[in-house]
């Protein structure tokens, strides 16, 4: 464990997208591909597939990169 020294968001939440957002979007894409693929054009399918791969990478990177961060909040911090 380590105390973070800066105020940046945790790794889990870094710049582009959070794990949760990426994961949810991935679920959404899979759902669409499963249920609506018949209505998709080839271009749409490829677009969704590519986005899915990107999201998978984001999620995996986040899982692999993270190290637990613990920060103490002062109990004097009333305001």
């Amino acid at each position, binding site marked *: 464990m380590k105390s973070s020294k800066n105020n940046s968001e945790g790794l889990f939440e870094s710049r582009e997208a959070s794990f949760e957002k990426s994961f949810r979007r991935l679920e959404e894409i899979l759902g669409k591909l499963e249920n609506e693929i018949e209505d998709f054009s080839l271009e749409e399918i490829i677009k969704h597939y590519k986005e899915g791969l990107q999201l998978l990478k984001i999620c995996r990177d986040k899982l692999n990169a993270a190290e*637990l961060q613990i920060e103490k909040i002062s109990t004097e911090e009333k305001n």
Partner: protein
Amino acid sequence: MNVITVSELSRKIRSVIENDFKVISVVGEISNFRHHQSGHFYFTLKDDKSQIGANMWSSNNILLRFKPEDGMKVIVKGRVTVYESRGSYQIDVWEMERAGEGELQFAFEELKRKLFEEGLFDQVHKKELPEFPARVGLITSEAGAAYHDFVKITKKRYPFVKLFLISAMMQGASAPLSIINAIRIGNKSKHKPEMLVIARGGGSAEDLSCFNNEKLAREIFASEIPVVSAIGHEIDFTIVDFVSDLRAPTPSAAAEMIFPDKAELMKKLNSMNYELGNSVFTKFSNMKNQLNSISNNYYFKRPADILNQYRFTLDENEKLLQSIPARKLNGMKTILDSTEKLLNSLAPEQVLKRGFTIITRDNKVMSRKSMVKTDDNIEIKFFDGVSGARITKPHGTLTADENKIIKNEIKQK
């Protein structure tokens, strides 16, 4: 007046006292407690005005589930005994229970009932916890085992989370206020934790009594952020358990309940990866099959087929024409001529000319002897006319000569 000895008096007092106080229950506070090396307890039981000596032999105190100490309020059951030699009386204790326990239990049940009736424990008020928490406020004592346990499981399961430690006292009279303060800080924090976990290792009923505090319960209920109770229990639930949005039986269990497991997530991602590829490749392969079946479709293939057929016939005819020289055509003409002759010779007229006739009766051809009988009128058709006749001899067979003639006639053709 009779004069009696000290011993006699003492014996009389003893018999009066011991007969009058055979079984008694007394409530009081323990003071001057001594646990003698023999195993016996010696102490004084007192209230604000009076006191009385007491002892509890080791054979009785060995079953006691708590350790008596000075200041503890207890109810003892026993009898009064007199030491004649010292002129003193005391309680011989058989059983002892903590006087506060019943009261505490009663107060707990009362508070529980009150808050329940107010709806503080209602399921409808339970806030939903995020499935993938990113920021979690941990309210605990940094020195406690709860902190260590919670962090250890979190590290192993879900190291992506950011923990915010909000230190609080987790035991004693000032614990409720300290925890209330921590909940307020968590709610106001600029770090915006998504949930607060109140963690404390196991303890006795007395250790955990601070979690049965009404003000604390109301503070948890009022918290905008969901609150998880992670209080180790050897005993029943606390009020904090009932009012929290999620109750875990230990700090470690709390970490397991609120955080998904990294290994599981990885597995899930792998299966999603497979699904993603699979759905797209299935679709592509379907599209390819469709394309193939369309291009193989009869309607698409027919124009080519028809053209091919024409082309084939054309080629065959051309080949045929080229392979037939003129003299062969002449030879074929000779064959045609003789074939024509043959066909003509088989015409009925030609046959009749050679001597055969046709026999009819009522315009029906009589081709067998069984078809006619004696006295039938018949007609004989020659090639040049008809003659009437009557059957005179209906039965019989052809002679050998007649057979020969017919066979020769047929051979000629």
